């Protein structure tokens, strides 16, 4: 008995040592040839464009902080992480990173000291970034931004969760090897679609929010090979990440290429607007700066994704609600609340007004199976951010101060069942 126990312990120790060794075993990465002139203005400018496309600033610049100096708190299940300083400071930032160090961090999730990065860094997506783009990004981070002498803030993650080596296991088991993830444009018939796929899957890392994740936290798919790719569903800061596939009711099925381009450029289109700060910031810091060609490419690629299976929502316009409201016949509590709170802008026909007040009839946020965004919108409100293409910070007020839980439920039930919703 004692012997058995001892051999079990020995086995466990051996397994642990093997696993531990596997975790620590160095990952081989390719060596890249640095560009001849790293400070070349055109190269640095291209790197800036790509950094915008990758929205690096979203995590690496704190609110009111210096650009790329890190320090933004990022909530995670194991504790609060703080983004790092990625300015070219030699003491606090990545000023001592070689091109290959940079490549390992970006595509493999390995810091210069060998630590594996937390999943907050979307390296499984960035693994698709081409060698040329990687070099341009490196040039930008070395020569395009000012070094900031700001120390990194330690993560608030308690031991033993703070140990980094288990992250290496995750990386080795669940993240794609960059050699395999390498982007192959030949898979797409249209070069514009291929460009869109490259941006969406790679630097855009759209799937980080818009693709549901497995219990082991990897995205269900990293490209169109999986039917759950960009199918929406995760809650991001309390808002529902929307379905970007061609589902008619809850996805982009009814959206034109132009609708998508306009939304990425300005946070809104004539019929819809971005909800929540998370996507608002993506537009603000990233997509508004992309070229028309790249935004069109992104839109074209998204439009190639077929509807995800299992959608239950449908919309078929029905004039009955508008007729009933206009003639004063609709006297349910929900309808009364709608007239008192919503109809001033969204009108009794639920169609709102193009460019200003989104239609409720056929609205994907209203039709979504998961009503979290709609509930939050009605209670808390939302406001667009102004930008160069659309400076007006249009918004909707929250109604939590005047609706009881029951009122809100009745109102939302009315909205979700009217005008053909």
């Amino acid at each position, binding site marked *: 008995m004692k012997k058995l126990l001892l051999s079990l312990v020995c086995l466990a120790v051996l397994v642990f040592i093997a696993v531990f060794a596997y975790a620590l075993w160095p990952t081989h990465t390719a060596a890249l040839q640095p560009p001849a002139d790293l400070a070349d203005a055109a190269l640095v400018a291209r790197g800036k464009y790509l950094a915008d496309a990758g929205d690096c600033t979203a995590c690496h610049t704190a609110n009111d902080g210096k650009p790329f100096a890190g320090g933004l708190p990022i909530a995670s299940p194991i504790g609060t992480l703080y983004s790092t300083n990625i300015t070219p400071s030699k003491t606090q930032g990545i000023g001592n990173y070689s091109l290959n160090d940079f490549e390992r961090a970006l595509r493999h999730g390995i810091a210069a000291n060998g630590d594996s990065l937390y999943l907050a860094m979307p390296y499984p997506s960035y693994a698709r970034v081409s060698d040329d783009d990687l070099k341009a990004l490196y040039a930008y981070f070395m020569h395009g931004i000012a070094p900031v002498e700001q120390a990194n803030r330690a993560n608030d993650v308690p031991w033993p969760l703070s140990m980094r080596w288990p992250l290496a296991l995750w990386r080795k088991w669940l993240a794609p090897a960059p050699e395999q993830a390498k982007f192959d444009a030949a898979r797409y018939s249209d070069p514009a679609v291929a460009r869109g796929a490259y941006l969406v899957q790679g630097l855009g890392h759209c799937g980080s929010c818009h693709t549901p994740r497995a219990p082991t936290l990897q995205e269900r798919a990293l490209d169109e090979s999986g039917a759950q790719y960009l199918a929406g569903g995760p809650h991001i800061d309390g808002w529902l990440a929307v379905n970007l596939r061609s589902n008619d009711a809850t996805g982009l099925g009814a959206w034109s290429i132009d609708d998508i381009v306009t939304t990425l450029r300005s946070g809104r289109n004539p019929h819809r607007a971005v909800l929540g700060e998370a996507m608002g910031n993506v537009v603000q810091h990233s997509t508004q700066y992309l070229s028309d060609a790249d935004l069109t490419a992104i839109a074209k690629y998204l439009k190639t994704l077929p509807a995800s299976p299992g959608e239950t929502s449908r919309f078929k316009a029905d004039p009955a609600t508008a007729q009933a409201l206009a003639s004063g016949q609709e006297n349910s509590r929900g309808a009364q609340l709608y007239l008192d709170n919503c109809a001033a*802008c969204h009108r009794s026909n639920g169609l709102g007004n193009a460019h200003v007040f989104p239609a409720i009839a056929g609205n994907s946020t209203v039709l979504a199976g998961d009503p979290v965004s709609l509930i939050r919108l009605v209670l808390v409100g939302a406001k667009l951010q102004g930008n160069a293409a659309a*400076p007006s*910070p*249009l918004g909707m*007020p929250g109604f939590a101060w005047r609706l009881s839980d029951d009122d809100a439920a009745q109102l939302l039930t009315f909205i979700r069942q009217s005008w053909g919703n």
Partner: protein
Amino acid sequence: MANIQPKVDAVIVGMGWTGAILAKELTDAGLNVVAFERGADRDTQPDFAYPRVVDELEGSVHRRYLQSLAQETVTVRHTPTATAVPYRQMGSFKPGTGVGGAGSHWSGCHFRALPEDFKLRSNVEQRYGRNFIPQDMTIQDFPVSYDDLEPHFDHFEYVCGTSGKAGVINGVKQPGGNPFEGSRSREFPLGPNPSYLGAEMFYKAAREVGYNPYPIPASNASAAYVNPYGCQMGPCNFCGFCSDYGCLNYSKASPNACILPVLRLRKQFELRTHSQVLKVNLDSDGKKATGVTYLDAQGRECEQPAELVLLCAFSLYNVHLMLLSGVGKPYDPASGEGTVGRNYSYQNLNRVMMFFGKDTQANGFIGIGGGGTTIDDLNGNQLDNGKAGFVGGGIIWARQPGSGPVRGVSVPSGTPNWGPQWKKAAADAFRHSFYYEVQGACMSYRQHYLSLDPTYRDAFGRPLLRMTFDWHDNEIKASQFLVNKALDMCKVLSPQSMAGDAKKAGGHYDITKYQSTHTCGGAIMGSDPKTSALNRYLQSWDVHNVFVIGANAFPQNNGYNPTGMVGALAYWAATAIREQYLKKPGPLVQA
């Protein structure tokens, strides 16, 4: 001076229409601009959010969006020998505060002055002789013409999404518009708003009498609209909460909805709210401003040095700051010398009330601040002043800005002020009555002026501005004439009862009764530095790097609402600063 801020290219005092226009234009020109606003920052969300903002008690009784008279106000008297007392409750006029200023709580009536309004004195002298103008009337020609301002009227209308119907485009008359207006270079950006029932009746009555009714130009968008700056406006939903309120719907043009979205994205623009400018600082010989002294949001006295100082506060407070700072010489009515405070004028507003039977559904709670219809047949050169016996004309309009129980219900004259009879009359009248208004010009006079009060001080220890103003025989005659014309016209509609409130001979200016916020003059533009504080570019004659933008520049007031003219003058001045002053700082007109 404990706290001296880094010098900037320009400071702007006040973030209403003129401040926002100047900030936009000067940041376009690459200048670094710091704007001071005494009140809070305000934006549609969250400050004017539906349905919180449509609260009559808060907006029209507690005056949430208006300036605090406990901090700053004016004192008022009727004659230069009387003792003025402070204006302690909002009555006759309603200056705003906070970002947007009066431009956020206006109604939206957006007129251009008539070409003849710009040359009032010479026009009247030419038509009726020099002696037709009363001795004490100090009216002057504007030093600019309608044609000078046409591009700026036009641009401001496009910024505001003004809804209307042109009457004359490039000299060609257009059906449905005002046939008497100055020629426009193009149509309004948006078509007119729909007519309410009272406006439809006005069209009928006016046409029967032979007048030429046209839609009031309204900066209440009749459709969704994107202005030249990219700002989005929404279509007006006739909620009836314009005057006294910020717009919940992005429909009423305001600095907040139409200009600030762009300014807020600009790095060269800094807005400091809750910052009270106390005075303009001058250099040792008083010829050049060095900046302003202000109290910051924490109440600390600070100095902001600047190359250019733009006074863009409400007209009265622009004059107040000039007097407090020694920018120009104060006006003395006895000698007629000095210019700052000279030619204060107002607006001659009157009302005709009509009560109809129960088959006339007025629905007075529906409203568009600037919507409705009006006539120019008794305004400008259409009116034979010689026959009428007074200088200046006016307009009659049907306008329903929206009413409600808290804002008051008009009842037929003879109704008791309380009790069951009042209740019945109020219930009947609220849904079945209309009022039309008569808005007359107001001339300027030697004895009507603005000065510093010798007794009363504001919360910051500065003497209050003192207003000396009363109704002159000329305006009383005009009121009676125009109200009678309106009553004659309304007879066509056969109301059950009807009453006008024309001013009575010998009557006095009543500061407790609202009569429009169109306070004008006090620092007027002119071509002679002896009789005007500002030159034709709204530049101080005395301190060349101070420009004073607002209705303070009107030598007298015409029959229209001033905002269209104020916006046009702001763009006119901004153009002069950009194209002339910045290239060669100094007086733009040699005295």
